[in-house]
């Protein structure tokens, strides 16, 4: 269910690497946990982040959660469609519900993230600990 080609964080973001650009979103598990998403707060294009920095927030009827950058880089695009209709993130978290695109500072950080298989195990553990 978690696409093989993506890289995952412990805070439930994913990143898809395409050359030196990373597309970032939240996982299917994250959107299910949050419930119906009603608001997204996204950064400005041009903003530079380190890895594991807060880049925005996602708000559902249950809670507001911070979003963290899986990798370092500069924001090159924000998904305006998702900001206008946050329900897209619930419907298609790995596709049309992506959040931001970043120009990566380095290609060395991606290796530290989880593979789809590792992430699935991590989620299993997290569910057990509820």
């Amino acid at each position, binding site marked *: 269910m978690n696409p093989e080609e993506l890289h995952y964080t412990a805070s439930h973001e994913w990143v898809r690497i395409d050359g030196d650009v990373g597309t970032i979103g939240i996982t299917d598990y994250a959107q299910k946990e949050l419930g119906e998403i*009603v*608001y997204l707060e996204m950064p400005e294009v041009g903003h530079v982040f380190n890895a594991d920095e807060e880049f925005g927030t996602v*708000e559902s*009827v*249950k*809670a507001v959660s911070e979003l963290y950058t899986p990798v370092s880089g500069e924001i090159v695009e924000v998904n305006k469609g998702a900001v206008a209709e*946050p*329900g897209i993130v619930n419907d298609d978290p790995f596709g049309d519900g992506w959040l931001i695109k970043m120009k990566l500072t380095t290609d060395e950080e991606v290796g530290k993230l989880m593979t789809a298989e590792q992430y699935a195990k991590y989620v299993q553990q997290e569910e057990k600990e*509820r």
Partner: protein
Amino acid sequence: MSVSVEEKKGPAPGDRRHPEPLHEPLVFERSGEGKVGYSLPPLDVPETVAIPEVLCRPDLAGETEISEVEVARHFTRLSRLNFSIDQALYPLGSCTMKHNPRVNEEVARLPGFASAHPLAPEEVSQGALELAWRLEKILSELTGLARVTLQPAAGAQGELAGILMVRAALAKTGNPRTTVLIPDSAHGTNPASAHFAGYKVRELKSNARGTLDLHVLEEAMTEDVAALMLTVPNTLGIFENQILDIARIVHGKGGYLYCDGANFNSFVGIAKPGAMGIDVMHMNLHKTFSTPHGGGGPGAGPVAVAESLVPFLPRPTVERRTDGAFSLDHDRPESIGRLRTFLGNFGMFVRALAYISSYGNRIGDVARGAVLNANYIRAGLAGVYHLKYDAPTMHEVVFSDKKQTASGIHAMDIGKRLMDYGFHPPTISFPLIVYGALMIEPTETESKTGLDAFVAAMRKIARESEEDPEIVKTAPHTTPVRRVDEVGAARNLVLRWRP
């Protein structure tokens, strides 16, 4: 709601539900040209308009015109659609919705208090000043801390005041530092307050017991950390039993230990925060000390501080002069300034002092009763609802919907269904570290009969979740407004009524 009464089925014998839908139009919608709510004699002096035309607003034409009887009925009807602590148990975890004793109201309405003018000179305000002074002394005694400001209008403003005092104290030494540490079991306002005071927030993960992990704290506590903001007991209703070690670690790096005292109800009169190493703590008069709450307010969030923070208290402070008279001291050069007009929400001071005085030396009974009642509910629902953390419960207990999710029932549904049984829902989905949380705080003012009725309703809902989940998922069925579209409301905000 334009469906006419004629087209709908009327109430049947034995139907005790609210007529559906029980809709009260907005007061603007009751407006009718020429309706008035006053009766004045005819004008017998020359008419002049004293307000310059430039200041007159033409857009106010068409304001609501309505009679007195319609106004009275409108608000009375609305009040009947509402739910309040005067109707039934209001177990909203972490909010401490306890009974507001009527004697408090009587005392607060004494003309000397109710009619006191905040701009009256000190000579004629001695009673009001003395009351504030006495309340400060008592709160100082209960917290074991040097002094107390009564100014903040609510808990969150108290938090801000407390962190600003920490910042001022550190800035005086040359370095205000950059970070405030906050456990993931803290109140949600804590990060906002720290941020507002100019600090970065670092969240600390709780351990398996549901309390702060000393190793996590030791690793995070650097000389860049201004304070640790600790909710005691935390939002799981669990006491931080390593509080002395926590204080030692924080103080060891020159930081301050801030206590969110919103849950003071669970240990007031039993233990003193000052003796635990806490440097600064806010309390909520509208929680622990029974002043009205949740629309009935306003609130009041006094902050108690250790000796080291006294110079930074908001000004003015109330002082007793050597001749015994009371006065305001504005001459406090290191003060963080004023947070609120005049003394703060003075009417709440009167009520809180009345409440504390009525208990006197038995004030610890408040905490004993609160802890007993929460544990009574915990025992009554054990095995029926999942309890993630089984450390001893203080004033509130956090269950989850884990046993019910298999039938597709979530905490939200359980809360909604409770309304059908005449109770206010508990706090749900908080604290965030318990998935599907149901956070229940009965407070000490509930009788055993009331608690038994609540436990019976919760047990019944658990049974319904297995046998008839649909009735829970579609609840509430007996309230004036049925299940609302929360997602639709949040996605399509309409904040202003327009004709």
